[in-house]
């Protein structure tokens, strides 16, 4: 299978599924779900194949494929992956699969739902495997827009407001990116959008310092950077289960990935110049997110703000600009993706039955629905950074890097993690333990089919928790190549 364009197949697979979904009549709901699930399963296999084929000791970008697209304008359809991209494609495929399975009970406007969701997935895959700025941005926008209908139609509580707010925030970020990315093109004088070619060009220092914040903030909005994060918790809360999973699990990672792939890679001088500022903001993310989460009474708001806090860890790691920091940041993107998907998947299960997310109205859920509760509790443990889960290593690395680079911020960030343990334990105490609320005595336990997606995610967290080398072997060589630019 050596010569097969695996990465193109990775994009084609969901595209074919989209075509099928569009053709199928809207009444054949099961067929649509099966198409989506099968294509998701195949993308997981393809992502595994990519991982298998990727040689960690090889060159930085592998499995490359270049087709000139618009030679006159320096645009080519250039795909390729480095270590972090391999990891993120795997994550996206997993979240696609588990998200599809989590929405198995959907009955309302199934065809449109899956059409939009698969479009989003195509966009996300595209961003992770593109090595051309035009296509990177193309897929980036393609991934963002389906969020609007997905939240506005299938969401809950204040959904239209949340959907519009999210879209406008993210598009404002895109406005900055438009300018920033095109500036890269003109300023290099190379007349190419190719990331690899641009990576060999040393941009003017003053240019880097001027453009870096534009690209960083443009992507940072999607990564939930403080103070432009407010779209994210409202969006999480309003979105339906699988959309929350995709949104917090992979979509927010696109922002961090963009910073990693474009901003830091192409503008190292700019990154150095702005590292202090953005590290402080990232720390605010961590601490602020945790404090706000402490006060929430809605399950999804708790997770939404904890996402803000955890994405702060990713951003802090990126701004530390050391091997530990970058490795931790990329690992955290992956770990947090799997963990948040598990969070939203378990909350979705509870919400679908009770139509209630008010933590105060629950109690002793662990007695009523032990297995479903276990999934939430495991996600929470992982979020707190308990050893044995993937997040532990990721957070540890970032904090080690942070304490070395910015001792004061590092201490604050670790304090933020302590607070996050506090709010998670508070949720456990109120909702899952203590006296059961008789109102929910007849809750149905999760079925084997329903438990499958959550179990997959738990396995991922545990495998990478007990054997972090799996991920770090992938990430390490890429980040050390990147650090040579500094």
């Amino acid at each position, binding site marked *: 299978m050596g010569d097969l364009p695996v990465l193109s197949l990775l994009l084609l697979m969901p595209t074919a599924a989209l075509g099928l979904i569009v053709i199928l009549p*809207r009444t054949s709901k099961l067929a649509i779900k099966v198409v989506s699930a099968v294509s998701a399963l195949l993308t997981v296999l393809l992502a595994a194949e990519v991982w298998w084929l990727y040689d960690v000791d090889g060159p930085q970008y592998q499995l490359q494929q270049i087709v000139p*697209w*618009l030679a*006159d*304008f320096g645009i080519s359809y250039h795909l390729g992956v480095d270590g972090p991209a391999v990891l993120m494609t795997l994550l996206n495929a997993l979240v696609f699969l588990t998200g599809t399975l989590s929405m198995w009970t959907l009955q309302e*406007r199934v065809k*449109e739902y899956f059409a939009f969701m698969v479009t989003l997935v195509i966009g996300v895959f595209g961003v992770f495997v593109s090595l051309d700025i*035009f296509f990177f*941005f*193309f*897929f980036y*926008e*393609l991934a963002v*827009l389906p969020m*609007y*209908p997905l939240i*506005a*139609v299938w969401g809950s509580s204040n959904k*239209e407001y949340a959907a*519009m707010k999210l*879209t*406008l925030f993210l*598009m*404002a970020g*895109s*406005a*900055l990116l*438009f*300018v920033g990315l*095109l*500036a890269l*093109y*003109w300023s290099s004088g190379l007349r190419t959008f190719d990331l690899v070619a641009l990576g060999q060009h040393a941009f003017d220092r003053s240019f880097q310092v001027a453009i870096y914040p534009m690209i960083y903030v443009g992507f940072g909005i999607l990564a939930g950077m403080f103070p432009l994060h407010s779209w994210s918790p409202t969006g999480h809360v309003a979105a339906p289960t699988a959309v929350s999973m995709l949104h917090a699990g992979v979509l927010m990672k696109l922002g961090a990935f963009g910073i990693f792939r474009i901003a830091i890679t192409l503008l190292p001088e700019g990154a150095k110049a702005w590292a202090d500022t953005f590290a402080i903001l990232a720390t605010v993310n961590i601490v602020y997110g945790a404090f706000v989460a402490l006060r929430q009474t809605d399950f999804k708001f708790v997770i939404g703000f904890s996402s803000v806090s955890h994405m702060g860890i990713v951003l802090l790691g990126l701004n530390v600009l050391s091997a530990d920091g970058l490795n931790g940041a990329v690992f955290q993107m992956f770990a947090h993706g799997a963990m948040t998907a598990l969070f939203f998947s378990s909350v979705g299960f509870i919400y679908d039955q009770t139509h209630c997310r008010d933590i105060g109205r629950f109690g002793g859920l662990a007695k009523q629905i032990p297995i479903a509760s276990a999934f939430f509790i495991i996600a929470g443990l992982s979020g707190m950074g308990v050893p044995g889960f993937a997040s532990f290593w990721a957070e540890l690395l970032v904090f080690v890097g942070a304490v070395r680079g910015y001792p004061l911020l590092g201490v604050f960030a670790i304090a933020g993690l302590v607070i996050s343990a506090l709010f998670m334990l508070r949720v456990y105490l109120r909702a899952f333990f203590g006296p059961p609320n008789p109102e929910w005595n007849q809750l149905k336990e999760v079925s084997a089919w329903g438990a499958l997606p959550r179990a997959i995610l738990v396995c991922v967290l545990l495998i990478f928790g007990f054997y972090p080398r799996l991920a770090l072997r992938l990430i390490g060589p890429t980040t050390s190549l990147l650090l040579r630019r500094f």
Partner: protein
Amino acid sequence: MPQLPMTDLTLFLPEIALLSGALCCFIASVADRSYASVWALGTLSAIAALVCSCLTLTFQGEPFAPGIYRIDLFSQFLKLGISGGLWLVQMLSRDDSSLRRFGRLELPFFLLLSGVGMMILVSATELLTLYVGLELAAYGLYISVALRRSLAIAGEAAAKYLLFGAASSAITLYGISLIYGASGTTYLASVVVDGSSLLLLTGFLLMLAGFLFKLALFPFHFWAPDLYQAAPHPVAAFVATVSKIAAVGLLARALSLIGATDAPIGEVFAVLSVASMTLGNLAALRQTDLKRLIGYSAVAQAGYVFLGFEALSTRGVAAALFYALSYGVMSHLAFVVVCAVGRSDKDPSLSDLVGLHRRAPLTAFFLLVAMFSLAGIPPTAGFFGKWLLFAAALERGQYALVLIAAINSTVALYYYLQVVRAAYVTPLPADVERPAEPAVGSQLALKTAGWISSAAMLAIGIYPAPLFELAQRAAAVVLR
């Protein structure tokens, strides 16, 4: 494919196709008085013109008299757009309700004649010929805008259009006279606007007035929202598509006159561009009438197109040409929905779109593609078009300008999403009994038009290379 010989006659083929079609329509509308035959004649002649434009795409020459009328890749590229747009608009008008009672028999004649005028416009290389084309293109429209008599404000809109049109073409004529006075010639080939003569520069800027009027750029946009709202649907569609393409061609031709000069022409264009997009977008935010909303958005879109002209470069003009053609297709698609929803001669408002995804999934899909394309979302042509325009403006280092434009397109996204929201999100109130209109589904012509436009939109968006290269070559030809 056998190559046509390049003679004076074959060079003129697209124009001949439209002109003879127009005359046949006229005769049929007097003699036969059956709408079906007049419509069929009009459509046939638009298709014939489209085919002729394709066949003569690579031709070049100056038929009849040198220096007055030029056939080259640039002119034929635009004629392709004009005749294609004309055909698509004809498809819209087949079953249109806004014209049912009055004047629909004459409409194909007026539209074709106006199309001929636009073809002359994009080929003319002499100022008076150009002016004749401008007037010929306008007269047909002045009349057909007024054809919708069931609406009270139709008369007002038609009067506004006529008065603004007359005033701006008077300014253009004055500008032409100044150019003649300064340079002693009306042949564009010998006019170069450089820093040497203030008179020439003034004349040039005044001449642009009539062109900007056609593009509905600030401050010549006042007629646009009224016209979009009150004109018969197909006529508004014609103004929104074909007319725009011709106007962009005209401006590109005008731009070719600019030589080396310190005069701040680019800066003037930049100001007009920003004013136009900001004003259009802000006004569109408040609209509830779908056509009026499209009208204001057209003012904003004209501002985007101007980003390309502001750059005063081949790349910029190519971007503008590319965007003009894609914009023609996307706004046509929006009008497919207008025609489908506004069946009962009522102007479709946003609340008429509610529940469209249930009542008419296909129409709703067309609307989605049209709005996303107008908003510049991939994988539609609008995304690539904006990318080109912004890139062209940035080439001159206009960071602030592009940032303003990009923020503007975020603002615009709000109202485009409002339209999508109405069609897809807002639930149909249970107590309100809505007629389950078949919308696009039952009308073959409309449905075909919608499919063609949306397929073109996605095809151009995913693989823009052929159209872009054509636009690039056309721009290189016109800019000497």
